[in-house]
């Protein structure tokens, strides 16, 4: 495990710990006079278990710290480039989908879906422009027909 990976693990464990403590804090006000019948009981127990397990995870992670390998300075250039490319592709994909979802209801669904598919495929150079337009049209048309016409779902 590298130092960077270990730090990421610690950050995630901290987030889960905060989540567990939040659940405990949110459950206590829900406990009534008869706690065993109150809606706060189960979340309280689950919050405590999650918190205890996360503390245990911290112990495991701190034990693993001893095994941290020093970052290889001469890490393969190709591998580094690949890692950078992976992160870039991941972030761009998330941004594309977030934009698509954020615009739902603001732009007619069929137009939005067509634009999303076109933009996505063009950005990643998945196919030539005519092919991209054709695929996007076919998929949008298919979704519109199946959901809008056959299943009568009021599209967003």
């Amino acid at each position, binding site marked *: 495990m590298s130092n960077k990976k270990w730090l990421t693990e610690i950050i995630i464990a901290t987030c889960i710990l905060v989540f567990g403590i939040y*659940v405990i804090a949110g459950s206590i006000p829900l406990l009534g006079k008869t706690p065993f019948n109150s809606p706060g009981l189960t979340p309280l127990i689950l919050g405590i278990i999650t918190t205890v397990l996360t503390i245990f995870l911290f112990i495991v992670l701190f034990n693993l710290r001893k095994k941290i390998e020093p970052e290889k300075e001469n890490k393969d250039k190709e591998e580094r480039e690949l890692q950078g490319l992976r992160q870039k592709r991941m972030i761009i994909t998330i941004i594309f989908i977030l934009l698509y*979802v954020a615009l*739902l209801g603001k732009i007619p669904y069929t137009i939005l879906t067509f634009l999303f598919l076109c933009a996505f495929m063009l950005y990643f150079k998945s196919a030539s422009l005519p092919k991209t337009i054709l695929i996007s049209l076919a998929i949008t048309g298919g979704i519109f027909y199946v959901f809008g016409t056959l299943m009568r779902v009021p599209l967003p």
Partner: protein
Amino acid sequence: MQGFSYLIHGFLNLLDPKILLPMTLASISGILIGALPGLTATMSIALLSGLTYDLDPGVAIPMLIALYVGAIYGGSQSAILLNIPGTPSAAATALDGYPLAKKGQAGPAIGLTRVASFYGGLVGIIALTIATPLLAKLALKFGSWEFFVIAIMGIMVCGSLTIDEIPVKGWITGFMGLIFAMVGMDNMTMVERFTFGNLYLQSGISLIPALIGLFGFTEVITVMAEPRQAKLSIDSKKLKVSIPFKEIFQYWKTTIRSALIGIGIGIIPGVGEDIAAWVSYGAAKNTSKNQEEFGRGSKEGIIAAETANNSCIGGASIPLLALAIPGSGAAAVLLGGIWLHGIRPGPLIFKEFPGFVYEYISMQVMANIMLLIFGLLISNITIKVLLVKKDILMPIVATLCVIGSYAVNTSVFDVYMMLFFGILGFILRVNGYPLAPMTLGIILGTMADENLRRALNIGKGSILPFFTRPLCVVLWLIVLVMILSRSKYFKQLMRKLFSKKQTQNI
């Protein structure tokens, strides 16, 4: 006898073209989806559940089952031809399938996976037919104490077995899933829990959008992040699928053992097809006369993995139908799909939905027959699908994730929910947290909550029955063994014991 007539009736129903045609489509789609690296069985069932919510349950549920069976099988083709398992359950198949393909034996290897899958599927169905009524009958004797402990046991066992290192991560995601299930209006007291005053959250976390997020959205990001496109190991025109009957009969012991392993692992809550394939592969390797062939193109290895992952479907369906506790991640999503259509599996299923279990069995039989037929017929089409660029496929899957989660309640809020679980699932998955326990937690949450409080109410606040009732004791012992088995001290002890035995034998 009544069960048999339900079975025949269910089977005849499936021959109605209105059901047969969609089921055929689902079976073929399942094989193709399973073959595509990155599109898992769990994800495809989650997507189809959202897409078929408006269909009649008599059509939608057979489609889901055909897709499930097809997708679990489909993963083997890309494992053999690309050395990338289409689904995690085909990972063990890749170990020997790819070397065989490189030796020019891709066709026989694919033929072998088809027959092994079909055989495994059938044995799983036999187990399902025999064990479900027995388990449902036994479950009628369970009290709230047992149901609560079963839910906790499911999370602990699933958390332990779905991760190699640091099992506590599996337990954490499981308990997080249980907590997510607490969101919304409490059914017993009508008090809001963790809704932040949001009207949409009052009815709780919408299951299908959450599952689409956890398995669909997460998969889209994971697959898109990888810039490299896999290459076929052989020329697609040269592929000729054949069934090597000789090997099938030669390794009859392996097939029987693998099918039984698959069923056994299937019954364990949330564990699933991939673990079944690995355990079976390991068992076959340890007992084989040709151990040196494993990993270099062993047909026995392929038979072991493929028989187990398909028999696991039947095994996973046993607790799903009798206890409403799914035996695998994919079965968990299937349970969500069945719930969506108003059918409530559980100990009372034979009373509340007489005939459903037998209809379910007939659907499984039909799905396996379709698997055998279409698996052989569309091999050359599947190979072409493998060449489709993921940069084209993934935006299409993303739009289906969005419309699938929207269509369930025609609510954009559900799409946001899908996104939340998708991003959460992605962060957790990248950092080695398994998602199957979280799915199980979301599904079992309500059961755990209601049974815990009901049990405490009956016992006037006493927690003793949770630890003194005989079945509870057995279940806690299983949990304890499961926790201990993951500690290094237990492993050291087992190693010592085995080395002692070996020295004694020498």
